[in-house]
């Protein structure tokens, strides 16, 4: 007998469909010995997000439509906070809150057949916290000082692929060395490109002043 869940079923279908679209694209926040970096792979170039000195982040999406939609939302969020308060008050936690609400409502919006296949990683530089925002609106808040994990993912919904990517990311060179000699990260980038089949693979170092 088939279980009917009504609206919930529709939401789950939309979520699973969006996850399938994002199955190979991914963004990871990697903690190396001497620094931090974002690694992202996508069919389209991922969007870097940077707002004042409070946080840095990255948006990935299945298509340009998805990344641009979330970038527009991000800009609108920042502008609204800036106009009500000030530029210095655009904090990661507020952005995460609003973006996650938006993503949740795109799934619950029954006028649209597809959810937005886009996810985000945001690093709060003041509190040293990494936020993952998933396409169903879930988000995490992980203080780097309180976890032994070195890799934080969004996207890459294929479990097997994620294991392979994680293994590959362990070979990431130290950030300061890679900044001096970009050739060091060449092998990792090309391997990740082959694994995911994604056209764009970007590695972005995170500094204190920004990304």
């Amino acid at each position, binding site marked *: 007998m088939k279980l009917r869940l009504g609206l919930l079923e529709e939401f789950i279908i939309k979520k699973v469909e969006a996850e399938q679209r994002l199955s190979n694209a991914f963004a990871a926040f990697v903690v190396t010995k001497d620094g931090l970096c974002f690694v992202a792979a996508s069919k389209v170039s991922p969007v870097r997000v940077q707002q004042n000195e409070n946080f840095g982040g990255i948006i990935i999406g299945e298509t340009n439509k998805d990344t641009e939609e979330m970038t527009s*939302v991000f800009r609108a969020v920042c502008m609204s906070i800036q*106009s009500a*308060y000030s530029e210095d*008050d655009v*904090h990661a*936690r507020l952005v995460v809150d609003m973006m996650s609400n938006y993503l949740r*409502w795109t799934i619950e919006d029954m006028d649209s057949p597809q959810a937005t296949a886009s996810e985000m990683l945001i690093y709060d530089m003041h509190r040293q916290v990494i936020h993952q925002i998933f396409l169903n609106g879930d988000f995490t808040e992980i203080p780097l000082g309180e976890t032994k994990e070195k890799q934080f993912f969004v996207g890459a919904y294929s479990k097997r692929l994620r294991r392979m990517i994680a293994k590959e990311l362990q070979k990431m060179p130290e950030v300061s060395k890679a900044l001096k000699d970009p050739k060091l990260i060449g092998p990792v980038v090309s391997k990740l490109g082959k694994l995911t089949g994604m056209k764009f693979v970007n590695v972005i170092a995170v500094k204190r002043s920004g990304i």
Partner: protein
Amino acid sequence: MRRELIERAFSSIFPSPVRAPGVVHGQKINTVAQSGTTVVAFRYKDGLIMAADRKTSGGYFFIDNLEAMKIHEVAVHTGFGAAGAVAHIQLVLHELELINSSFRSRARHPLSVRGQVNYISNMIRDYSLYVCPWGLEAHSLIAGIDHEGASIYGIFVDGAVLEYPYSSVGSGSDQAIARLDQEQRQLKAGSFKEKAAIELALRAIRQAGLRDSGSSDLRTALPSVAKITYKNGFEFIDEDVLKPVVAGLVEELKS
């Protein structure tokens, strides 16, 4: 981008829009509790000093209260003082406390001083444009410390914002600021030590109390003085510390 979804997301973050404080549009107000007031604020070595007199009057006709507190702690590192109609000042104060607590709980960071000033300035401007044509009669002074350091902002009744190294608001501000101007070099450098800063604040309040009918005289009411420091945030100075200084200043007048 789905506009209605963004608007719903925003509504969860920002407090509700400006509310009318029980004043019906066009209704004649017979008696208004006025706070003629002198509030001063300036920088000193460890942070900021705020001081105010204690008198609330009814349109300069009668004294309503000689124990009114005119400076308030609105956030850990922010103080607020204002002159004008008491109801309007209380509305601004309430809104300021509300946004500070809601922002802190949402963002896990305190709201910057500039952010608080900007919000109140927008609120005052919107109020006069959309709610009540004669606006909010509250000339506010917000002094606080954030990651950019100590800052003092004045917000006028039309919503204009100005930043000062030292400032005073209220009917006695002319006298108070004249006293502060005598020490402007040290005030701009923020080089006063705590004891000297408290004495200067009380001197400015004394000067205003002597000449302004809206501000209380040192001889009739002990002013309220608060300090905002990087370490401990907003703290009122104890009366035991103020009394000897006030006694000395009163004695100076007699001689």
